[in-house]
């Protein structure tokens, strides 16, 4: 057999031939025992190699990769600047911005989040409401709880974390039908925070209490009411859950 015929046989065994090529191969196989043997050997080799299963990457790999990649910041460096691009906050204008500042100031004053009267704290942009869902977790060195609250068309995720070492948290509400509205925290010491319209990623350590305020997103496509949360330590997933706005 010449090289062209060998390439034809290989392409046939790999399913790379068009109709004309396949017809050419069929004719060759019909008339050449050597071609048939070569073709069958290739098919057996392909089948043998095809028995090897795909490997699962180590569980920590995803966290390692995502944690190592630094994306450009969505907006300016400071927390206040990051708020500036948020449509929800823009809608409220100066008054809402001021409310967030007030919220932070009060939290910085040492209020216990779970005892906070949101009506007094954040006025027009948030309200204490009914608990829709809740997630509590406790792992060695890390404990936390997250409550999903609702009043009217306003929603809040209330975080209370206590970690011995750095913990990263990913919040994604892209499927929930909600959009980011504002953020308030008790102690301004998050190591990192990245906000988008439908997600929040942060890194912190020690005791942290903060609230993510959300509003319905009229542009959401087929929302399912679910907010995903995941916590990582040393790039390994510690805990994950879905909170839902629907009973």
């Amino acid at each position: 057999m010449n090289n062209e015929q060998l390439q034809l046989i290989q392409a046939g065994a790999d399913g790379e031939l068009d109709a004309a090529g396949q017809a050419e191969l069929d004719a060759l196989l019909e008339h050449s025992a050597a071609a048939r043997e070569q073709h069958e050997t290739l098919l057996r080799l392909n089948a043998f190699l095809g028995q090897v299963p795909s490997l699962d990457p180590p569980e920590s790999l995803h966290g390692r990769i995502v944690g190592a990649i630094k994306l450009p910041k969505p907006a300016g460096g400071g927390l206040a600047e990051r708020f500036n691009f948020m449509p929800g906050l823009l809608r409220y204008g100066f008054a809402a911005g001021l409310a967030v500042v007030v919220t932070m100031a009060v939290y910085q004053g040492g209020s216990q989040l779970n005892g906070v009267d949101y009506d007094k704290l954040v006025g027009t942009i948030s309200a204490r409401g009914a608990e829709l869902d809740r997630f509590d977790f406790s792992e060695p060195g890390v404990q936390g709880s997250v409550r999903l609250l609702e009043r009217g068309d306003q929603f809040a995720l209330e975080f209370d974390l206590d970690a011995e070492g750095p913990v990263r948290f990913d919040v994604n509400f892209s499927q929930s039908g909600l959009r980011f509205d504002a953020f308030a925290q008790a102690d301004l010491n998050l190591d990192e925070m990245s906000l988008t319209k439908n997600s929040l990623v942060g890194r912190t350590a020690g005791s942290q209490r903060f609230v993510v305020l959300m509003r319905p997103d009229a542009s959401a496509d087929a929302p399912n009411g679910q907010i995903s949360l995941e916590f990582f330590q040393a790039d390994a997933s510690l805990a994950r859950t879905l909170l839902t706005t629907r009973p």
Partner: protein
Amino acid sequence: MHKDHDLALIEDCKKGDQQALASLVRRYERPVYNVAYRMLGTADEAADVSQTTFLKAFENLNRYNPEYKFFSWIYRIAVNESINQLNRRKRLGELGDDEVAPGEGPDESVDTDKLSVQIQAALAALSEDHRAVVVLRHFSEHSYRDIAMMLQIPEKTVKSRLFSARKAMKVQLEGKGVSL
């Protein structure tokens, strides 16, 4: 393979969207890891190369040409990084000439499987260029055309390398008692 969705995620990544980054990584971490593992034969090195692959891809995201498939680009980086790691290994001489360290890392249970060990040993006996085409063809199931694009070589070179590589693998496997 999700070209339009990939492009949308890449654009979101450029705007700093961490969720888009997580989605893109989630989509390709497994195939990239498998390519690296089959090129290198050890779980630890495959994980390191996978991480480096994504890092390099995102560091150079602004240089990515959206006319080409994202997966072609990231696979090319994965193969090149794997070859770089093989060269580093050779220079260090810690594991010998492409010698596989079996059963290392979290995939030990998988790799102790006789079949997988036989195939990994046969792969290790190939040159890097030949190994790359076999891995992309058999373990990532890419077409000749995609492989040519990933490795930036003519399609006919893909075919000839595949042919030579398979011939060598057959000899290797038969030498280990596999009947083909």
